[in-house]
């Protein structure tokens, strides 16, 4: 996994609440057996009509909107546990998702793929949307080490939570499996103790 520390980029505002993983990537695109290529169908039915033509009203189709950061309404990633949602966002080019509230399984999936989850207060989110809607060129600065998100020049910043273990993993680019494999003996001892 790639190490993460600072992410600074323009951001795309998607001011919709309860964006479920079926919207992020519909089930009919889950048939691949590898992790690559899901970005093509990210937000498929919002981005394209039934003939595959991009819908001009959808923000990802606006050529002025670019960036590694997606800012979304609260309860992002609800519903299905499909990790393909995190893969699709990453594959499309996002490296951080900012929202005031995330669904649990999605948040785990994202972090397990080096896609940073930045949970901010409702007020911070509302102000960020206002700024991004009016000024598409605005940069957002995310510092994982300091656990801080800010909008330079706008006097807007906020701390964000992340568990210390996960933070260490992301900063050092190690994954949970590497860690679990390193404590295999303790797992064997546990099995012996509990199951004989």
């Amino acid at each position, binding site marked *: 996994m790639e190490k993460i520390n600072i992410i600074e980029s323009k951001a795309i505002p998607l001011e919709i609440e309860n964006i479920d993983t079926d919207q992020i990537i*519909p089930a009919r695109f889950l*048939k691949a057996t590898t992790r690559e290529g899901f970005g093509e169908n990210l937000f498929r039915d919002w981005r394209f009509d039934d003939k595959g033509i991009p819908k001009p009203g959808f923000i990802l189709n606006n050529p002025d909107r670019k960036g590694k950061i997606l800012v979304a309404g609260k309860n992002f990633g609800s519903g299905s*546990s499909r990790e393909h949602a995190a893969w699709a966002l990453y594959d499309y080019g996002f490296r951080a998702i900012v929202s005031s509230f995330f669904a649990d*399984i999605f948040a785990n999936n994202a972090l397990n793929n080096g896609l940073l989850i930045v949970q901010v207060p409702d007020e911070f989110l509302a102000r960020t949307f206002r700024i991004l809607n009016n000024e598409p060129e605005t940069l957002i600065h995310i510092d994982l080490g300091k656990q801080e998100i800010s909008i330079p020049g706008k006097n807007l910043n906020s701390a964000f939570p992340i568990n210390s273990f996960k933070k260490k993993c992301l900063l050092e680019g190690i994954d949970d499996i590497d860690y679990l494999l390193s404590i295999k003996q303790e797992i064997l001892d546990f099995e012996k103790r509990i199951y004989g």
Partner: protein
Amino acid sequence: MGKTLFDKIWDQHVVKTIPGGPDILYIDRHYIHEVTSPQAFAGLERRGIRVFRPEKVVATADHNVPTKDQHLPIKDLLSRNQVEKLTENAGKYGITLYGLGHPFQGIVHVIGPELGLTLPGQTIVCGDSHTATHGAFGTIAFGIGTSEVEMVMATQCLIQQKPKSMRISVNGKLSNGVTSKDVILYIISKLTAGGATGFFVEYAGSTFKHMSMEARMTVCNMSIEMGARGGLMAPDDVTFKYLEKREFSLKGKDFTEAVKKWKKLYSNPDAKFSSEISFNAEDIEPMVTWGTNPGQGTKITGIIPDSPENRGALEYMGFKAGESFLGKKINYVFIGSCTNGRIEDFREVARIVKGKKKATNVRAYLVPGSKQVEQQIEQEGLRQIFEDTGLEVRQPGCSACLGMNDDKVPRGELCVSTSNRNFEGRQGPGARTILASPLTAAAVALTGSITDVRTLI
């Protein structure tokens, strides 16, 4: 302070706690299916490691499979490839597979319980958010992503932050025509689609105590639809009776000994929950959803609500605020899924439709949750009842719940569905889903429009 049911099971499975951080949780049972496992197997391959405890993993093919002509090769090449990949991986890593054609095949959350693989006190995971279903047996069961599937295959453990605890109590007797599906849709409508995020829910109270295991599974199944990681109930005599004589359940003395332990699985009277909510069963009526998340539901006799933030959902559904549900024309009905694809659900449907005829405008999918359910439908004479009504019974699978296989609802059509999600496009691009109980779905199949089942019984 006394422990909750959840604490008791969780604490028993903690291998170690990372200082200041999450727990390493040992997993007793890992269910896998064709959609969320291939990348996990590829990960093992890349690392050059084997499945650590293959005997704790059980695989089935359910999401992608057609529900007709299962003896023929799957027509959709990508689906076929995924199912074949599962067969290949199961063989290679020594994992038991109940694949297409096997008498135990079916939806992963239907077969686990019916085979007695799900037992009280276990920790259970699956790369599927409806894993919460197994909580009905007094287990900690929750959905995981593919990286976590790989983790469990590699080490039989997960790194998890202990969630907060919520107890939802429902007391009292349900009225005729009101089912466990209505109870959970009611709860979700009160809590909203994100109302239990960060929590693990325990369902308590006399209403649940009086439910069958099938009904309890329907409730726990939909815990995720209010954001909860999972939901569970204390096991009791109903649970033990269900588990006795199941194919892979414990037998004889082992079973009796296990029951003694399982009887200790309940929340102590002095246990504290981070959140406590209660409802009265008498307040619950048959429910339907009007929007595009499962929290957007109301009683079937109600009207479609109005508020600015709902406009998008109403527009998608083609509904107008203030309209009533009753009488709305419905051309599609789906009865099945891990929520309501068990034998009891089909018995209930048969009770409503017996001796009547399906409405001519309705296209109905009746899809058993497993081969065993399919067989019971046959043996109990339900198939004949359905056929006489004009309803065709298909073969087991996830079917029209998720728009991944051939069973889809056409763009713009409304479908009354016993499944668990009414998200945009869930049942096919542009499809409009109304979630309801099997009784309500049966009533709609007969009348071709939204009907209060209480007028038919």
